């Protein structure tokens, strides 16, 4: 159970996240929607503690995540994997090493500095890659892969962390519909099969509706909607998205909705 209490983050005058109170039970797949600048990204970064909250608490079990420091903080980050819109892989390292970085927290310092990984860790990384259908690229440099492939490697890196929670910050915003679908399917698969909580920022509404158990709407830093997809009325969604509504509703833009045959062919391939 992940619990946010009065979580607030201020940038100068601007309240990026304003008094967020949420309870997310284990194993849920949550989609966060809202227009750009609504604070979705800041919220996820607060959860992974890439940025520090100005006020409020993040509770996971009994631990106050917001107060963690040093090694404990890194332990939390390794439990709480994150994938990014721009993948944030190390382009000049090969794919397998990128996935192995997911193990850094557990690897003793001398081994990580010398880039020495055990056969067990390597096999685990390959298995993670294999699950995303990327094992054949293991020895390529990450920067030579396409966007969709890089995002799958990033998910494999997250799996290598053995996370309890997986945060995804606009994972499909830079991808074409076909790759977007592959990535979202992978996230749902991880959520369903491994029971890992997935919290996902999404720009398009239909993706959130299709994949998530629960949708959280944000507007100007505040949580304005929290419920199952069927509770989210069109009227409500229009309000959340404001001026960007048409773009967000336009299913052709960056959504995962594909003609079934194309998607099937792609997945088989």
């Amino acid at each position: 159970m992940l619990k946010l209490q009065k979580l607030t983050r201020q940038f100068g005058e601007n309240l990026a996240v304003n008094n967020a109170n949420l309870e997310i039970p284990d194993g849920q797949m949550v989609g966060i929607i809202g227009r750009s600048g609504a604070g979705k990204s800041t919220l996820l970064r607060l959860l992974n503690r890439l940025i520090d909250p100005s006020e409020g608490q993040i509770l996971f079990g009994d631990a106050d995540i917001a107060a963690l420091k040093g090694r404990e903080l890194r332990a939390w980050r390794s439990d709480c994997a994150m994938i990014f819109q721009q993948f944030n892989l190390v382009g000049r390292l090969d794919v397998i090493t990128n996935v192995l970085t997911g193990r850094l927290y557990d690897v003793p310092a001398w081994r990580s500095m010398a880039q020495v990984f055990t056969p067990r860790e390597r096999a685990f990384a390959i298995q993670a890659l294999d699950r995303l259908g990327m094992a054949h690229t293991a020895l390529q440099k990450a920067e030579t892969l396409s966007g969709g492939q890089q995002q799958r490697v990033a998910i494999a890196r997250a799996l290598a962390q053995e996370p309890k929670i997986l945060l995804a910050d606009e994972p499909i915003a830079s991808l074409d519909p076909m790759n977007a679908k592959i990535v979202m399917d992978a996230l749902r698969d991880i959520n369903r099969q491994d029971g890992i909580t997935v919290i996902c920022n999404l720009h398009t509404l239909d993706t959130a509706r299709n994949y998530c158990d629960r949708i959280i709407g944000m507007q100007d830093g505040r949580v304005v909607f929290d419920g199952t997809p069927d509770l989210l009325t069109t009227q409500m969604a229009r309000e959340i998205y404001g001026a960007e509504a048409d773009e967000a509703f336009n299913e052709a833009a960056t959504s995962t909705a594909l003609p079934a045959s194309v998607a099937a062919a792609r997945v088989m391939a």
Partner: protein
Amino acid sequence: MSIAAISAVTDDQIDRVRADHPGAFATPLGTIRRWAPLVLAVIYVLGSMWYFEFGKLLESSERVLRLLRAFVVWRDMDGWAYDQIYVGIAQTLAMAFLGTLLGTIGALMIGFVAARNVMPVMIVRQIVRRILDVLRGIDSLVWGLVFVRAVGLGPLAGVLAIFVSDLGTLSKLYSEAIENIDRKQVEGVKATGASQLGVIRYGYIPQVLPVFISQSLYFLESNTRSATILGIVGAGGIGMIIIERFRAGLYDQVAFVVLNVLVLIFAIDWVSKRVRLWAIGEKHDA
């Protein structure tokens, strides 16, 4: 079943994955190849430490401390002959200025002779270039030493040293700038029936002048640095004062002068950066 945990990976699975993806696992050869450069570098450095007798550094720690103390404790500051020090600094600046100016004037002429598009005679060009290579290959400090032997101690030798080493480098840079110009403008001037000198004056100079100026300004900066040390071989400037005081064991004064030199170098860096930015900005405006 597929709850992935690293602890659940069996040895069988490892073997199977290794069989499928042998390249993803460390091999003895790969490990050696990865570590060889680092190991060799470390061995080399250790070996050279032995060769250069790094131990001497530890043995002489008492002298090191004594010298450091002498640098920090300043005595009799009234009698330090400040006028000499600041005249030395002024002389350093003057040497850099005159040397760069002479080098620029010389390079203006030689640069054209060394440029392929101005000097068609291959042999002349090659000879000039080889001479420039030699001028450049010899450090300005060596030139300083040579000119001290030739014309005696003092700033004249320093100016000549800066002049000669600048002549080598600036001429090369200038000739490259001349070779990279736009041919069409030159043809335009030629078409008016201008003489070779006229072509250079109206076809080449306007195009290359900004490059020349910015390069010379840059050299003025780096020459100030060279000028501070030229005195060590007796070629005038603040370096001469440093080495005199050092030989006389006046270490506190040496420290003071070196601090002044550092301030001078940082100041010149700063001013030169500003001036170059300003010059670029001005060019942009016009």
